[in-house]
């Protein structure tokens, strides 16, 4: 179980001095780290450490009171989620957030939403440019469906799918946007070993084949240490570790945070 030794030069996203609080509760305190283009970056930490809050800041759901996020060289302190999506940030959620009434196919199609350009009129009539566009997007979506091996549930309303498949569809929807940065919030939570292995394979393949930068939150240490290039560790809203998996494994603060220390 050793990390894949890869090196990256270009920084895709950097987080500088982010602090976020809800009323009197401090969720994040002065967090800084960066995500390099092409890497798999993991955020780990005990429950309530602020991992999801961090992801929500990057994605624009939360607006940190202090600090800034620089993405593709553009520095910003606030961004709305749909703007993040327009700039190539896609994500999945800890508690699956699919459009339950729609089929697998339609769910993944929504991921293409931003890439559709033809006017409403043509779309409604389904002729001319709209039809060509629809076909083109359908092709892209079918490729994703093949890639994730969910052909057999294409037309099934996702509400009826088992948990593991729902997670996969959610990944598919995020991939459909062809993101540059993919945020995965506990993609393997609640899965059995086999499902976890499948998901690991998909994450690695996405990273390898499409060159997508991935930032993931995960609790399974075996998985994290196996697939990620670098790991950042949060505890009580503070950063307590940052480095390649081997460093993290030896980091005393991290070990204490996970195992607990007598005070």
């Amino acid at each position, binding site marked *: 179980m050793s990390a894949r030794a890869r090196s990256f030069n270009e920084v895709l996203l950097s987080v500088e001095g982010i602090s976020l609080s809800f009323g009197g509760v401090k969720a994040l305190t002065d967090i800084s780290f960066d995500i390099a283009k092409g890497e798999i970056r993991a955020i780990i930490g005990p429950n309530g450490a602020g991992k999801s809050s961090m992801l929500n800041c990057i994605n624009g759901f939360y607006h940190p009171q202090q600090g800034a996020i620089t993405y593709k060289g553009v520095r910003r302190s606030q961004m709305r989620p*749909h703007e993040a*999506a327009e700039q190539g940030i896609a994500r999945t959620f800890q508690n699956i*957030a699919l459009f339950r009434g729609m089929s697998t196919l339609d769910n993944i199609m929504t*991921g293409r939403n931003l890439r559709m350009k033809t006017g409403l009129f043509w779309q409604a009539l389904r002729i001319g440019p709209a039809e060509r566009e629809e076909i083109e997007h359908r092709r892209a979506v079918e490729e994703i469906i093949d890639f994730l091996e969910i052909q057999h549930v294409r037309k099934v309303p996702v509400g009826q799918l088992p948990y593991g498949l729902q997670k996969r569809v959610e990944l598919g*929807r995020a991939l459909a946007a062809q993101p540059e940065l993919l945020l995965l919030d506990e993609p393997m939570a609640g899965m059995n070993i086999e499902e976890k292995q499948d998901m690991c394979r998909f994450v690695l393949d996405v990273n390898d084949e499409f060159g997508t930068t991935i930032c993931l939150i995960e609790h399974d240490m075996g998985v994290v240490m196996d697939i990620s290039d670098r790991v950042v560790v949060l505890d009580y809203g503070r950063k307590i570790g940052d480095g390649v998996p081997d460093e993290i494994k030896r980091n005393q603060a991290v070990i204490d945070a996970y195992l607990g220390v007598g005070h």
Partner: protein
Amino acid sequence: MASSEPEPAMLGPFLETLIGGLLTGVLYSLVALGFVLIFKASGVFNFAQGAMVLFAALTLARLTGAIDGREVHLVHFIVAAAILGSALAFVAWYAWREYVARGGGAIERRRILLLAAGGALIGGVVAGAYGKGSWPLWLALPATAAIMGVLAYAIERLVLRHLVNQEGIILFMATLGIAYFLDGFGQTLWGSDIYKINLGLPKDPIFLLEGVFEGGLLVDPGDLVAAVIAAVLVVVLAVFFQKTRVGRALRAVADDHAAAQSVGIPLDTIWLIVWTVSGLVALAAGVIWGAKLGVQFSISLIALKALPVLILGGFTSVPGAIIGGLIIGAGEKLSEVFLAPILVKQFNLAGGGIENWFAYVLALIFLLFRPQGLFGERIIERV
């Protein structure tokens, strides 16, 4: 309502009542559709839908000059401003699209301002030319549409957006407040007389199938035209929401706000579209009901008729609203005509009024046995 005595040959009167009921039902569907659109996209039960219908009807009636000899300068002024606003809004919308498509910039910003100024100028000229008299329908209709659009936008922007993620009951109370405000404000603006809207529809009743039934089947051509308009509108909306990108986005928003945002769907824009569309649906309903019954306060109570329609069809289903409307429309007419005489005969009751409660009793029965309605999503709560 015309209640004909049942004759030995019941089929003729039955069909006649059924047709009349279905035609009314289409109009119920139209009002119900306004509810469904907003409920689907934002989870708000918009009690103000009926008030919006009344407001639209009042506006149109007043613009087409239903009051003789009364000139209200303020009103004209407001109307002029509304057209202006409409031109502005449309232009801004168009420019915004351009703006986004080209990545934005100083030139686009200047162009938006320029177009907005142009829109204002056109609005001013039109208002100046027609402002003092009564407006022709072709002008009054788009102006009313514009006013409804602006109104819907204002409701969304000023009230509901600030209540996002609040309890359903709070949102409901907010729309209740809006409903009463609109009912009153419409009268403040346009007066409280009963107006007429003249769409120039034929008035003489048509007789169908005279060869088959004695005397034929009597159908009101006004109802027929209204039903056709409503049906076309329903189909257009259905296509819009099922087949287009915006439609898919709307369904996505309805299912999960956060997920919709994460795939790049702007919530504000979708809500704005939905409210505007429901404002336009209110206009269509207002015009048709106004032409049928006259524009008066009771029109806003039609919204209450849409409630049982929604319970029948399911709060989130467009086809449900259509079918529900037809069932209620036909059911209440049939019950009035055929159930009432039986009650009178058998139990010596006074009879009438069945039309008023039939829909609600049907809805109650549905609530007991099929609370999600005919087409609604099944309500399954995990514990």
